[in-house]
């Protein structure tokens, strides 16, 4: 993807939905988006760091999120990005992935997967800065450990019961994964913008 060929023009960006407007038109998991909006938090120091970066020339004044309402990574992650945007003054626009595959195709995970959420940061005149995909490394590490624990403790579970057990053990970790998202996004932006 280069700036010359991107489909994300200022006019296209403006067509995205605010978090509130997105929630008003989804058909599933509205309660979960609201629950994880409540649990997402940006500390005072983190907010100051994001604000500082947003105020920089070429800073992340705008953020685009691709997602779908049925996806747990989205109903956990979009509220975090919304809280970051609110704390720092970024303009957030949400785009349902399946209706915007031309945007999605610019940011395929490992060049092939349409992973969501995909969060793309732009300057105020919609020049690409960087993007973040799906969930923080901390969540992937914890999920892998929990998977191993369940397999070890309950080796005879069938697929359905295994999934139920995984949900039971991973869902309580979602607020911690949200905190890790704030930290990882802050570090990504700081590194990209070379902020110390």
């Amino acid at each position, binding site marked *: 993807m280069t700036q010359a060929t991107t489909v994300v023009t200022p006019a296209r960006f403006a067509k995205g939905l605010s978090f509130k407007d997105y929630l008003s038109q989804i*058909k*599933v*998991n509205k309660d979960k988006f609201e629950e994880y909006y409540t649990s997402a938090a940006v500390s005072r120091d983190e907010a100051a760091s994001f604000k500082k970066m947003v105020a920089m020339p070429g800073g992340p004044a705008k953020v685009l999120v691709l997602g*779908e*309402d*049925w996806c*747990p990574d989205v109903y956990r992650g979009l509220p975090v990005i919304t809280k970051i945007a609110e704390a720092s003054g970024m303009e957030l626009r949400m785009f349902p992935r*399946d*209706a915007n595959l031309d945007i999605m195709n610019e940011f395929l995970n490992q060049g092939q997967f349409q992973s969501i959420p995909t969060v793309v940061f732009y300057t105020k005149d919609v020049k690409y800065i960087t993007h973040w995909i799906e969930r923080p490394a901390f969540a992937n590490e914890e999920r892998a450990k929990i998977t191993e624990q369940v397999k070890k403790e309950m080796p005879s579970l069938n*697929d*359905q019961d295994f*999934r*139920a057990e995984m*949900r039971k053990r991973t869902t309580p970790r979602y607020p911690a994964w949200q905190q890790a998202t704030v930290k990882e996004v802050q570090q990504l932006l700081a590194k990209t913008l070379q902020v110390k």
Partner: protein
Amino acid sequence: MRSILPRQLRGRGLAKEKTAPIVYTLASCPACKKLKEDWTLEKIVFDERQVDQSQALLDEALVYGDMVPIVVYPDKRVEIGYKGMIG
């Protein structure tokens, strides 16, 4: 061995939801579209449940898996994906 259908399932009055596979889909999933096209051509009757249209259907599908399509056969066998594709 001969299988014996319960009285209420015999004959023409077979209820679709009791005898046809349930297929959980997403509106825009390519694998789901392919399954539906193929099965329609092959005249396979199925009960489609589009999970992005209803919280109840989404919660129902999540019992079986978190990727689509999910096919639940009348004998409770569950298959996730179609011809190696996942939505």
